[in-house]
């Protein structure tokens, strides 16, 4: 197979190897590795049964918790992240590099470590955690805990992607707007944000997708209320693989929707 008949152009190597065909096979195997398990998941359980199990209270509760917490986390990440992204896009220097490294840190940190880091600040035995519990607003084992974990892990996506989007807006356009007598805020609203919108939306979508899938840090901060990934794990451990399928399928569908958004209204940062 390594010396196919259509291989004249790709150059048959010294050992009679057709490297183009080899490369195609390698890539093809990887693609199958992505697609086959996905299809297998949907085939492993009849469609009717999935629908029947969808109104199970544990499924509904975890979906509600996940959608609500991920939405809140994404809003927070956007509100706090956009100004930082703009600053990073428009500044240059050593400080900028350090700040960017700090932003990227949660992306490369193992999520469970992220959870531990957060527990030292928000955990029940920390001063802040204790005060919050006393105020009747616990920061662990609560929706707040879920949001804290998700925001930590997902917000860098907003900052990093929006930064690239802001950078793609020619700064001359901002100068032009301001030289026309428009203040910074009017300029941002009418020139910078509309032009950066597709990239910003991509960042928001990625952050939401990451927040929905967050497991490691969430487990450490808030085992309850259960999000979908935690529910999958609990169902798998306590009841077996079959029982984890419905929530997993829900998550696959949400991921597919995020992909759809990325490839339509948003500008896919990886394209």
């Amino acid at each position: 197979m390594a010396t196919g008949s259509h291989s004249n152009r790709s150059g048959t190597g010294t050992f009679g190897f057709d490297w183009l065909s080899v490369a195609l096979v390698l890539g093809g195997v990887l693609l199958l590795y992505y697609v086959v398990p996905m299809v297998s998941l949907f085939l492993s359980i009849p469609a009717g049964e999935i629908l029947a199990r969808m109104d199970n209270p544990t499924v509904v509760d975890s979906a509600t918790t996940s959608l609500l917490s991920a939405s809140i986390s994404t809003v927070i990440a956007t509100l706090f992240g956009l100004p930082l992204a703009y600053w990073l896009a428009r500044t240059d220097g050593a400080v900028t590099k350090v700040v960017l490294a700090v932003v990227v840190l949660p992306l490369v940190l193992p999520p469970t470590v992220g959870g531990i880091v957060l527990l030292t600040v928000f955990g029940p035995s920390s001063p802040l955690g204790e005060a919050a519990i006393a105020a009747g607003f616990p920061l662990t084992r609560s929706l707040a805990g879920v949001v804290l974990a998700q925001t930590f892990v997902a917000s860098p996506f907003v900052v990093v992607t929006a930064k690239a989007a802001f950078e793609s807006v020619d700064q001359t356009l901002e100068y032009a707007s301001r030289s026309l007598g428009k203040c910074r805020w009017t300029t941002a609203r009418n020139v910078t944000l509309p032009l950066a919108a597709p990239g910003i939306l991509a960042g928001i979508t990625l952050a939401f997708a990451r927040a929905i899938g967050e497991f490691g840090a969430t487990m450490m901060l808030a085992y309850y209320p259960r999000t979908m990934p935690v529910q999958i794990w609990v169902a798998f451990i306590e009841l077996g693989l079959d029982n984890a399928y419905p929530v997993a399928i829900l998550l696959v569908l949400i991921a597919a929707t995020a992909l759809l958004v990325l490839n339509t209204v948003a500008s896919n940062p990886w394209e």
Partner: protein
Amino acid sequence: MTLELSRLRKAYSQFDFGPVDLTVEAEVLAVLGPSGSGKTTLLSLIAGITSPNSGSIQLDERELVGLPLEDRRVGMVFQEGALFPHMTARENIAYAAAAIDRVDELATLLELEDVLDRKPPTLSGGERQRVALARTLATDPDVLLLDEPLSSLDAPIRKRLRDELHSLFESLEIPILYVTHDQRTATALGDRIAIVRDGDPEQVGSPSTVLTRPTSRFVARFTGNENLFEGKVTDRTADGATVRFGNIQFQTTASDINTSTVTVCIHPSRIEIEAPYIADGDRTANAVTGTVSRWLNEGSEYRIDIEIEKGAITLTANVRPPTFERLALENGSEVQVLIPKESIHLIPEL
């Protein structure tokens, strides 16, 4: 309106801009200089895009340094237009206009009626620049800055738009700084020309003065004075000085020269070529004979190199096509070179 820059200075890691002193009345000042000479920096400082390290920029007693750019009332037309790509031409102009009537008024003035509903990417280069100009004028600025607005356009459109700008500028009655690296655009549009080097206006004056009476070799070279020679002043009278270069004496009308070593500067367009047998009836011109060593057809004129005194000096002259054809010039042709006294400009060498 008067724009006054005093001791304006900006330090960069690569070069220092200024200190610049410059006064611009309600006129067009063409800022001419090679790329990297600080022309754009000058505009950025006035517009407020860049802050100076020291110095002041005053607009009729109003200090601009320290004001954010949106509060300066300084209009700027950027090199490529800097139109907002997500807005139509009309929206671009309306964004800046205080009253909506102004959009149609400016569209009529700049002949933009037909393109108002199109977005910038679909406009031609000339249309884009006219929309950019309309957008800037819509704010009724106190000062107008233009950064090489014509440089990216094709020659015919550039000429047409240059003519349009000329009449438009006359009607504005505000200080206008027009940055360009093209000497023709500068002389066509400028009431005065400033030749800049490292941000510093090395010479400021009327187009004809800057072109024919450069005060330095840098200005001379940049304004197309290709004939630059080292010379010695051999005699001075009330009517002018006699200068010697290439072993020939030339009469000049220069009266304010007090050094003996000078740079002799003759603009190629100020040299006349005649057939060798025609006697010099005109006593105001220096006449020498020479041989054509090279010629180049540049379209509207011919550029000719003439060797004088067996190549001791080579003069470059611009000759109009009728003259070139009448004299049937070619390499080796013997010609008479007439240089009017007032066309020989002397730059003192210190």
